[in-house]
């Protein structure tokens, strides 16, 4: 695999293997697309019947799937939850990262709070889910508002760690200069520190958005009784209604995948950077 780096030619063996390997990514997507466009009558029992291109590229499956799974409402819920959760995470977690990052070295209280929150990373959702289902119901939060609040709490350990780590690189001198001009700490934060942390905001936004968008468990446990769905939750809840009409089911799967695919195509670079930054730091 590791061809000598001295030669400047294209590594042909690697190229061929990579192209072949790509089939493992493309095949499931191809399968999804062709089945989503076909009619049940085209699905003969043979492999070729399943894998051949559809006779016509009709959108009727998608139309029906949208009705069955209440697509637009689920999409709206998913977008709302993701956008608000990401926005709140950036504001709340960066503030917390700032307060803890600037004080944890010299104050016992802040270093304790920092450790307390960051160690929340080890708490699996499994232990929280039953008490949280009860608690959110008691508080009248068994809905999308509760789900958003929970995301802000769940991703706090990771994001606070990222923000306070990034803050180490921002010299105190910047803040002190503003202080001389008489600006308050609060103002200094929003005017100087918050804009400087922009690369970290991008990382946090990508990581939080991907996790929230694809999460099943939290809405499943918290929103189950609210009659509302997110996109993944709709797939789970309407699975039984598809029956053996796989064409309808796959049209619905494809619909559920399209928003994130579009997002990925547009922001691929930011997503890759965000994911790497989040993991490596």
């Amino acid at each position: 695999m590791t061809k000598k780096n001295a030669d400047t030619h294209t590594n042909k063996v690697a190229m061929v293997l990579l192209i072949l390997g790509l089939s493992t990514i493309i095949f499931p997507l191809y399968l999804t697309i062709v089945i989503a466009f076909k009619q049940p009558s085209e699905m003969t029992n043979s492999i070729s019947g399943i894998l051949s291109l559809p006779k016509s590229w009709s959108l009727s499956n998608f139309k029906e799937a949208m009705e069955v799974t209440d697509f637009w409402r689920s999409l709206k819920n998913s977008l709302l939850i993701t956008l608000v959760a990401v926005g709140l995470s950036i504001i709340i977690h960066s503030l917390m990262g700032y307060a803890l990052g600037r004080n944890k070295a010299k104050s016992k209280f802040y270093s304790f709070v920092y450790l307390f929150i960051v160690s929340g990373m080890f708490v699996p959702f499994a232990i929280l889910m039953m008490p949280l289902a009860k608690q959110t119901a008691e508080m009248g939060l068994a809905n999308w508002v509760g789900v958003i609040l929970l995301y802000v709490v769940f991703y706090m350990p990771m994001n606070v760690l990222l923000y306070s780590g990034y803050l180490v690189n921002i010299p105190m001198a910047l803040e002190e200069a503003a202080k001389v001009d008489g600006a308050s700490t609060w103002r200094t934060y929003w005017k100087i520190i918050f804009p400087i942390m922009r690369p970290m905001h991008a990382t946090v936004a990508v990581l939080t958005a991907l996790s929230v968008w694809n999460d099943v468990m939290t809405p499943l446990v918290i929103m189950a009784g609210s009659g509302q769905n997110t996109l993944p939750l709709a797939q789970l809840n309407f699975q039984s209604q598809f029956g053996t009409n796989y064409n309808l089911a796959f049209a619905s799967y494809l619909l559920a995948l399209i928003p994130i695919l579009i997002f990925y195509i547009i922001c691929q670079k930011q997503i890759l950077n965000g994911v790497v930054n989040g993991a490596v730091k």
Partner: protein
Amino acid sequence: MKEVMKNERKRTFLLITIPILALFICFNTIPLIRGVIYSFTNFKGFGKYNWVGFQNYIDLFSDARVGKSYWFTFKLAIVSTVVTNVLSLILALGLNSKIKAKSFFRGAYFLPNILGALVVGYIFNYFFTYILPAVAQMMGIGALSSSILSNPSAAWIGIMVVCAWQAIAMNTIIYISGLQTVPEDVYEAGGLDGATGWKQFRYLTFPLIIPFFSINMVLCVKNFLMVFDQIMALTKGGPAQSTESISYLIYNNGMSGGQFGFQSANAVVFFIVIVIVSVAQMKFSSSKEEQL
């Protein structure tokens, strides 16, 4: 004047920290404590309940279904971690070598990671149920001619494949960023000493990317131990309860099976297991890094 400003700074930090900490305690610490409290009761999820002391914990260790779920989850986590890391290392080396259309390949190979695990699971469910058996029949492979998801001793392999398919995307990207930290001249110097191919990888490349290897191990093990969506989409714990992950069992029996108290005890044990595994991994990888 200076004193006033110092106080103002202190106050601002407190005003930021206290409400956010309160939010965290309200939705993380308090439910955690409540979970521990429930684990000492025979609560069904509704109605009255009594204290039962450590009875749930005693029952836990003699419960065959719980034992089976731990065995399944660890088997899945370990095998998936090994498979994922071996394949992603190979893939990362390929993607980091001198190839054309580098960014296209990297983008394409990362794609599985952004897709929702539940929908991916449904797509693979169809693949394992209809496509794979049909292909196996055509090729005359008897062992695969019926769906592996309905075979109690093989269903976990299907889940492993789906877990790995998505995790490889993530791990590869991390390995690539590791490989990019290895300076060219290390290879040049190694080349003079005759370190090429496997030797080069084993003695030069791999030691230099150990920190990235550690990150991937921690990420993989933690995520795989908490596996849930894939189970939901592929097997719902079946056949014959052979693929019930710990999270799935806690969800299924705790939320709707009337075992709120008992599964709370299971969740407490699971929490302790996760902490032990994570701390052990971090200790191990930091000692490895020090050696270098």
